[in-house]
Each structure stands twice: as structure tokens, then as C-alpha cells.
């Protein structure tokens, strides 16, 4: 449920922010969201990377079709992807996904570092290791 909220929030904020702000909002937004909303590590990664990859691929795809392939076909040779527009879309999505996912994961780790981990651990495992108990 929390992951779902994160995905919605990330999508909405990224969509709006991308229109006005530099590309790295796709790193800042998931980082901040993951500090605010608690999930596990995997969820913090994918709740950022999935919507951002999706948004990037959709936007690129819209441009690709609206401009009749004029630039995509050339850039897919520059990269070099053998002229494949699909691969170029995929690369775009992967880069956006990795950058945002890693930022989400980093945000999560930041949260875990700041907020007392004990309660977290306790609820999850029901067991507190001895060395931590002493502390």
C-alpha cells in the first residue's frame, strides 16, 4: 500500500517537475519521498524506478511518433544501437529508472540511518540481536 502511494506521488511530482526543472528532479523527488514514506529497500527502489522509466519511455515515445521518427532514427545510429528506435527508448527508460531507483534507495537508507532502527527491526523480526540490546 505504501509502495502504491509512493508510486502515485512520484509519478505526479515527476510529471509536473519535469516540465520546468532539470532532469535530476527524478533523483531528488524519490530521495525525498523515501525519507518521508517508509518502505523496505526493494520497494523504495522500484517505487521510484518503475514510474520514472514509464514516464520517460512514454514521453520519448510520444515525441518519436509525433515527429515521424526523424531524429530517433539518426540518434539510434549515433549511440550506436543499429538504428533501433525501440532500443533507444529502452536505454532512455533504463537510465531514468536506475537514476531514480538508486536515489529512492539512498533516501530509504538515509531514513533508516536517522530514525531509530530498533522499533523497525523489532516489528519485522520479533527478535533483537544481543549486541544491539546491550546498546
Amino acid at each position, binding site marked *: 500500500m505504501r509502495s502504491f502511494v509512493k508510486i502515485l506521488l512520484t509519478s505526479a511530482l515527476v510529471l509536473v517537475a519535469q516540465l520546468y526543472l532539470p*532532469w*535530476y528532479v527524478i533523483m531528488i523527488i524519490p530521495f525525498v519521498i523515501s525519507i518521508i514514506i517508509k518502505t523496505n529497500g526493494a520497494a523504495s527502489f522500484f517505487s521510484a524506478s518503475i514510474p520514472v522509466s514509464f514516464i520517460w519511455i512514454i514521453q520519448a515515445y510520444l515525441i518519436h511518433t509525433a515527429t515521424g521518427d526523424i531524429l530517433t532514427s539518426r540518434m539510434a545510429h549515433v549511440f550506436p544501437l543499429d538504428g533501433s528506435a525501440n532500443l533507444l527508448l529502452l536505454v532512455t527508460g533504463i537510465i531514468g529508472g536506475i537514476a531514480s531507483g*538508486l536515489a529512492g534507495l539512498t533516501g530509504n537508507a538515509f531514513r533508516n540511518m536517522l530514525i531509530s532502527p530498533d522499533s523497525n527491526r523489532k516489528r519485522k523480526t520479533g527478535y533483537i540481536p544481543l549486541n544491539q540490546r546491550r546498546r
Partner: protein
Amino acid sequence: MRRFLWFFILAILSAGLFYVLQFGVAHIPPAGKFLNPFSGFWANAEPAKPVIKESLSIAGLQDEVTVVYDDRLVPHIFAKNAHDLFFAQGYITATNRLWQMEFQTHFAAGRVSEIVGEKTLELDRMQRRKGLMYAAELTVEAFDSDTLAKDILESYSDGVNAYISSLTYKTLPLEYKLLNYYPEPWSKLKSALLLKYMADMLTGKSMDIELSNAISLLGEEITELIYPDFPDTLIDPIVPVGTTFPHTDIHLDTPSVIGIHQHYNVESEKTSDNIGSNNWAVSGSKTKTGAPILCNDPHLQLNLPSIWYEIQLSMPDYNVYGVSLPGSPAVIIGFNNDIAWGVTNGTQDVKDWYKVTFKDATCNAYLFDHEWKAIKERPEKIRIKGKASFIDTVLYTHYGPIAYGPGLSDDTSSYFLASAWTGLEPSNELLSFYNLNRAHNYDEYVKAISTFQCPSQNFVFASVSGDIALWQQGKFPMKWPKQGKYVMDGSLSEYQWQQYIPQSENPHIFNPSRQFVSSANQHPTDTAYPYYYNGFFEHYRNRRINERLALMNNITVEDMMLLQNDNFNMQASESLPLMLRLLSSQNQQSAYLKTLNQWNYVNDALSEAATIYEVWYDCLDSLIWDELYVEGKMTEIPLEFTTIRLMQRYPNHSIFDIKHTTDKKETLDDLVNQSFSQAINILDDWKTKNNKSLTWFEYKATSIQHLARIIPFSATNIEIGGNKRIVNACDSRWGPSWRMIVSLENPIKAYGVYPGGQSGNPGSHFYTTGIEKWRKGEYYELFFMKDASDLQPGMTTQTLQTIKP
């Protein structure tokens, strides 16, 4: 602790990733910035139907400007005053061609390494040793000394800068994103650099060093035979044979020795031997409409974005249409309501080389007329992407900069060579174009071009009132015989340029009895001209054009289109019969021979015979000039015309002997047969390797390459015929860069096409617009609007408004 460590690792990873995606590594562009579909390269893709805003507000305009775009995106600019006209020209040109404008001037200034890194350092060093920046600075001084030129250039710069300051990363031209840098403010200096870039391209290469090397290899007699100033046969100059020239007393201090001949093993840049152009005008008595027709097709390197930008410029008392050079105000080749003009390159040598004698190793002083003259030093700081800057010092003599010498390049020379070049002198070519744009008649045309210095151009002219003319215009040093043909002694004043040919005596022709004028980089005159000049002149295109024009009557625009696209290979028609005659019986069996025997000497795109001839001739030419292909020695292969003359006249001459076969003395006969066998092998191999037929266009492989040599942004393997020395002078990399035909009826009708498109953006559908028509020899009708309301179908109007404070 572990959580801290985990965060710390992730934070480092994130920061690292951010850095790589934001700033890039080495030559990889910053992937995050670049791939972001909201503002990265994706944002440079444009829809097929261009988005033209109805109005734009731009700070700096004095009044409202109307820009009408036609269906090819040619802007027709209507302004109320000169400031706004050239401001708008700068703004609109930059909108479409900014990256190209700046890259060309970076190239001229020797600043490419700033963008692409160390691999172009030697190129940049050479550019600086040519002194283009030095010349551009002098040109700015010349601009500034003239209020009109200064105002035009400043308005243009302000317009370009208004566009640059409107840019965000999203709207930045694609190449900046790809090469990861940003545009600088435009300036008068950059416009001056562009003019010097053209001057250098067209006149910056002279053969003095190569010809001196030829003398040291072959002796003076053979050198003069194979590089004659005039051939031993009739030529077809710009000013017709038989014209008389005014008698002139020439007083020049003439030395007894013409040059210093030794082995100069310098590493010189290679330029194409296909720089050239055609232009002609026929008078009304030869045309169907009774109005003169003017034609021009300058042959330049085929690049994308195209070197030309089509434009109409209009204000009160000024209405002109044609092509402009992105980076320079005004129209360079075009027409107005009254006249049309076009240019070809004047091919005379205006760059001479001097051997400089230094006093000592400090190179502070050099010998001149038995005294030591102080050298001027010009420090050059070459910034290199990703590396520390390279500091160079260029030494200037009173002739010009020292381009070659110990430690200056990779060569191991022990001598210093300085160049004198008319392009290094202050001049104001821009004003000539501005005045041409607004000229109404022959007198105003002559006045407009009279101050044009470098690169020397053959200005063809025709007017609605019925005049035709052609002036070879430039600043030409007055030379004693053979002066500047070879490297000269820089220590004696009699070797320096002493005077210039008076402008009024430049070769010219006005309303001649033959009813046409033409130029195609041939000799401007025959030997009756009183002044000495030398150069590598054309001998085929000019004769073909003149032959055709002399025969034609009732000429239509369509006839002129056919002539501009004429693929007749006159060189083949004059050499192949001889080559075939000398072929021995064992070579008679080849299937290639059958194709050649049926050939009509036309280099059409689909001709296979043309490929066979060209390959065979190249093999023969290489065998004949084996004595000039010497390791570590820069030489120039003689003109095909001269070679073929020698084949016809002296088939047993020693030049036909192959040097390394000491036991045998070859004659032309042997070489023709040997080269034919070589050609067969090359042709067979090519067919097997490429699995294609031998059609001429496939073999020639004409490509129009992106300026930064980004192959996916280039057009390759274009199906077009022609070759150098053919009227349709399209070889693999050079060719007709703008074909224009103007019928001087009232009102004027004009047609044009160029191998590129109005947009410089590889993401635009207007990037390669004209290539298809260009290769087929077709034209667009040019819409020359009377005023902003003279709209044609497909046109879109945009208003540029000033921002009121």
C-alpha cells in the same frame, strides 16, 4: 554503524551516478541530461509541419518586423529600417543554424580542441599559424572604421545574441548537447572569422612549396613543362582571346634568380582540387524571352548543415533574395528587382611563401636587405577539452606568419617559411555585398565590388535593363615573371610584393559581341594581359560551357538547367580515344573494353563506362607521375589537362619512364597497358568486395557530411553523376553547393536548389529538404515577394515585436 555505512555507500553511488549523468565522462555526453525526454536530445525532434509562432517578442528591435516563411522554411524578412533588418537576419539565421555558425568560426580560429579534445590540436595549431584570427581582428578594425559596416554587423550580432540569450538546455541545438558545450555570445569578430574561413578555403592554398619540390626533383625545365603558366595550346579564358588590354609600364625590381629550390618536406594540409564554380550570363538576344539569364553554381565541400542559408531581405529601398552565409549579414549570391549576380573563385595565386633567415636560435630577428628586422610574437593559447591548455607562439614577419619551421609541427625541417597572403590585409568584403544587394545597374555593381579584396571572385552580372558583365575582382599583387610560383628568398626586398594591380585593370568584360559571359576558374585572360599571374586553372568546364553557350539560341530557363547539370566528360573525350588506340591486343579481350567502346563520354549516375574510364585514368595518372610520389616530399600532381597534352604530344618523353625500373625505359604505350591491367584488378576487386555493379554513383559514393563528421547526421551514397572537370562538378565530397538560375524579366523569375535544407537541426524535416531535387537536377521556383502581403500558398507569417520597457 552498519546503517550509516550502507547509507554512505549508496550516497556515494548516487552522487557518482548523478555526476556521470549530469556532466558526462570523457567523450560520452551526460546521459541523464541528454536522454531526458523532456529537455534532452528528444526535445530537438520537430514535427513534420513546422511550429511557427504567430508572434515573438524580442528585446532590441526598434520596430515591428514581419517574417514570412514559405513551405521550404525560407524566411522572407520585411523590416522598416536597416537595424531591424540585419538584427532579424541574425536572429532568424541563428534560430536555424546557430551551432554551424559558431563551429565554423571556432574552426577558423583554431579552437576545435576546446570542443572535441586533443585529437585536433595539430589542426588548431596550423589554423593559428595561418593567422586567420589575426586577419579577422584586422577586419574588425576595418569594419569599425566604416559607420555603415559597423552598424550592420552590430545589429546582426545583437540579433544572434538575442536568440542565444533566449536558449535553455531544452532549446539548445542538438550538437551542443551531444558534444556537451554551450554557445558563446556572437560578435563582429566571429563574422570576420567566417569571412576569413571562406577566404582561406578558397585562396589559402598555393603550390609554391610543392613546385619548389618539383624543381628539386625534376629540374627547372621539366617543372615548367608540367606546370606551365599557360598551356602550349589555345585556351578559353574569361576575357575572350583577342581582347586588347591598355598598355602599362611596369617597374618592378626583378631578381636574377626566381626562387630557392630545395627539399621542403613539410606536412601540408591537403585540399581538394575540385574547389571551383561555374557562372555565366547570356544576353537577351540569345534568350527566348529577350531578357538576360544569369546562372551560378559554386562548388564547395558538401556539408550538412549546408554552407548556404536561403533568405529574402527587404526594407524600404532594399529588396534582395538569394543565399547568405550563416554568420554574415546580407545576401552573398542572389538578385534584387533590377540585377542578379553570382560568383566563382578567382584561381590566381595570392599566397606566396618566403624562406626566412633568423639571426640566431632565439628567432628574435630575421634578415631583410642586409639588416636584422625584429620579429613580432603572437602568443596563442589553445584550450583543450579535458586537458591543460597548450601555449604556442606564432612568429610574424612583415610578410605574414611563419607557418613551417623546426618544432612548429611534426616535420623535421631546418628552415622557416613565412607566407604573404592578401587575406591577411584589412579589408571590408561585407560592404561589397551590402552594396551589391542594393545595386540597380552596371555602374553600381562595379562600384560595389571595387573594394572586394580576398578571396578574389569572378562576379557575373546581368540586369533587367539588358546588360551582362563579368569582373574578376580581388586585390592582386603585381608580380615579375614567375614571382611567387616557387618559394622565394625572404631576406631581399625585390622578392616581396612591390605594388598591386590597379583595380580598374582587373580582367573584366562588359556586353561582349559573343552575347554571353562566363567563368569556371579558368585563366582570366590570355597571354596578352600585361601582368604576370600563375595558378592551377580549369581547362574543361570552361570550354564545355562556352561551346554550348556559343551554339545555343532562343535559350530558356530549362536549357540552362540542363547545362548546369551537364555530365559530359570532355577530359574523357580528349584522352580515352588515345588510350584505347595504344591498348595492345592481349588487353583487347576485356569485357570492360566493350563497355568503354560504346560510351558516349557522359558521366551519368548509372554509367558503368564512366567508372571504368575514371579508374583507368587514375591508374594511368599515378603511373605517369611516379616521379612525384616521393616519400616525405610534398608535391602536386599536374593538371589532367597538362598530362593529356603531354600524352598527345610527347608519348616518348622521359616523364613516362617509370623511375624504379632501371633496366627498361617505358613510354606512354607501356603505361597505358600497365594501367589498364591495374584498373581491371581494381574494378574486379571492387565488384567482389561490394557486391554491386560498377555504376558511377556507387563507385564515386558522393556524401554530404555533417560538419563534425557525425555519420548518422550525414547523407551518403547519393545517386548523382558528374565529377570534377565536368560542368556538374560533383565528386565524392565536393560539388555544386547552390544552383541558381535567374531570368531577368520584369518581374524577375528565379530558380534554385541546394544539397541541404533550411534547418540545421538533424531532428528537423527541413534538414535535407533540397537533396532529392538537387541530385535529380531539378529546381525550386524562388518566391521573390514584392512586400509582406504578397503571400503564396503554404506561407506562414510571423511578427517579431519589440519588448517595450
